[in-house]
């Protein structure tokens, strides 16, 4: 079966103060039709950069150095910008940004912004009716009147619903959701997540869901990729990754979560996230790793295939995850 999205040895380079560093380093990932891929990692691990490079919205100081992104078998790096903007961005590939507050234009009504998307990104004729229907489907009551309101009259959760409407109205093949619930309260987050789950089922879109919240990712993802310092360190099915992580970093992240045992000290990953312009030699994680041996500081581990069908970038993946 053909993969819907295939990311092949992708390297994205950032330039900053005459220094350059790889924000995404040799990432291989693929996505099937209708699959939800969760991407987790701490801040600065390159997860948002990956999302932006798929929809080609990288900031000017970032560039895809090499590697390729194949969308429906076609390299999106080779498509001309005008064509990409017309046929792909917002049409076949949608994007839900992290901050609903700043993603809507404050000087236009919500209805106008949604109608613009329908007008320029779909072939639907009955624009107004579709817009109202879409908002109703997102759970916005009284949609017809609310269309004429401005973003500041909407609450955070409502704005996120509008953005979901904008993302799904074009019936995208691929949706990139960059931390869509981070700015929301827990009860609203739960609403948006369950809405998103319904929409995924209805539209059968493939989703790349970027988040730092392990709980959220386990709610929504079929498969999970863990990022560390620009690299994928582990990929596996959702159930396997939380039950038996095969990379020391994944294991350490799971152990950081507070649990019921109050007297215990929380596990902490020693040290800090490395500066991307001064990465350690060998495995990026080795200075903070409990399993490290001499080899780790000399050689970069490739992605090994694990017994549970996933991939892990650790020489000692077989030893990891027993303690959980």
């Amino acid at each position, binding site marked *: 079966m053909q993969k819907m999205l295939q990311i092949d040895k992708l390297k994205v380079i950032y330039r900053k103060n005459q220094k350059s560093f790889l924000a995404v380093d040799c990432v291989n990932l693929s996505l099937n039709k209708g699959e939800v891929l969760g991407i987790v990692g701490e801040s600065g691990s390159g997860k948002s950069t990956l999302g932006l490079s798929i929809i080609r919205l990288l900031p000017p100081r970032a560039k895809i150095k090499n590697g390729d992104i194949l969308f429906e078998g076609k390299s999106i790096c080779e498509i001309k910008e005008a064509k990409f903007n017309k046929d792909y961005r917002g049409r076949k590939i949608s994007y839900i940004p992290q901050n609903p507050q700043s993603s809507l234009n404050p000087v236009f009504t919500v209805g106008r912004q949604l109608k613009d998307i329908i007008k320029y990104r779909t072939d639907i004729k009955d624009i107004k009716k579709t817009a109202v229907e879409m908002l109703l489907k997102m759970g916005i009551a009284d949609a017809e009147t609310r269309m004429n309101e401005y973003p500041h009259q909407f609450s955070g959760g409502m704005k996120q619903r509008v953005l979901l409407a904008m993302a799904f109205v074009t019936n995208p093949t691929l949706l990139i959701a960059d931390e869509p619930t981070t700015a929301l309260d*827990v*009860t609203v987050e739960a609403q948006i997540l369950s809405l998103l789950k319904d929409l995924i089922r209805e539209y059968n879109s493939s989703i790349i869901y970027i988040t730092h919240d392990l*709980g959220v*990712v*386990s709610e929504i993802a079929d498969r999970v990729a863990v990022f560390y310092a620009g690299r994928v360190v582990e990929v596996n099915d959702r159930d396997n990754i939380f039950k038996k992580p095969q990379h020391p970093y994944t294991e350490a*992240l799971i152990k950081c979560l507070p649990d019921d045992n109050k007297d215990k000290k929380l596990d902490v990953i020693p040290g*800090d*996230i490395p500066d991307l312009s001064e990465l350690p030699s060998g495995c990026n994680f080795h200075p903070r790793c409990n399993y490290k041996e001499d080899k780790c500081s000399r050689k970069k581990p490739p992605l090994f295939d694990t017994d549970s069908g996933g991939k892990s970038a650790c020489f000692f993946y077989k030893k990891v995850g027993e303690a959980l």
Partner: protein
Amino acid sequence: MKIIEVSNLKKYFYNKDGVLNKVIGNGPQIIQAVQDVSFHINQGNIMALVGESGCGKTTVARLILNLIKADQGDIKFKDRSIYNMNKENFKDYRKNVAFIAQDFRSSLNPRKLVGEILEEPFKVHPDSFDKKEKDNRILKILKLVGLNEKSLLKFPHEFSGGQARRIGVARALMLNPQFIVCDEPTSGLDLSISASIINLMKELKIEFDLTYLWISHNLNVVRFISDYVGVMYLGRIVEIGQTADIFNNPKHPYTEALIQSVPSFSKENKEIKRDTLQGEPPSPINPPTGCSFHPRCKYAKEVCKKEIPLLEKNGENQEVACYFPL
């Protein structure tokens, strides 16, 4: 011993009628930020306040710190009302009650070196430590929070989020306080850094015999760290009690919904649909009549729309404000 006792606290904010409001014809609006909040914290305990944004948690913190004055009600520090203290006692109160601000970046003056920032408390309270003690104290606390001596000569922007938070913690500890108000101490931090801050706060509590008021919306953290929890909704405490009781056996429908909303990977099957709460918290300008939670509550009956339920004892260590506790 009760270290802090808050009784029937009320705070209103007034949205003064500006030019635009006059044109539109809106009168001044009253925001009922905190309503009838009462609780106490015993020496050595960690009390957590949880709730969604806008529920008044931070306002309670600011009231306790006397950054704003309550419209009604009283706050007692060691059985002495802070509103009736003389100048000397009040200064002592300020010394004993410290604050860790939510926004750790903007709470550190960007133009001052960390050394100057940490010296500031001693300038306000010059008689607390003499010169020599002061320098030793700064170095000792700095070491305790996990920063080295070199940090004193750096500016706040040179630190990462977790380190900046540690500076905030160090500053709070300088005058040897008895009680610390921690406003969202782990928000905006990555998982492992958040865990290290939680560990640090726990260690410091034991080391200095501290008492915390822990304000957070992260229920996982609250469950882990606190001894008592107060759940706030729209300016009121709807349920209060021991952490284990609240989490294992919530009595208020809102508490139940809040706990169920937390995404967690311990759930075996992700296909199970959670019972999510409908709607969003109403505005504190125009709160619903009766129980403010009734429009979102699936158990709501007629009486909930009319009368405000009061906090009543339910079980050994739990109080709940609901006519139909679960």
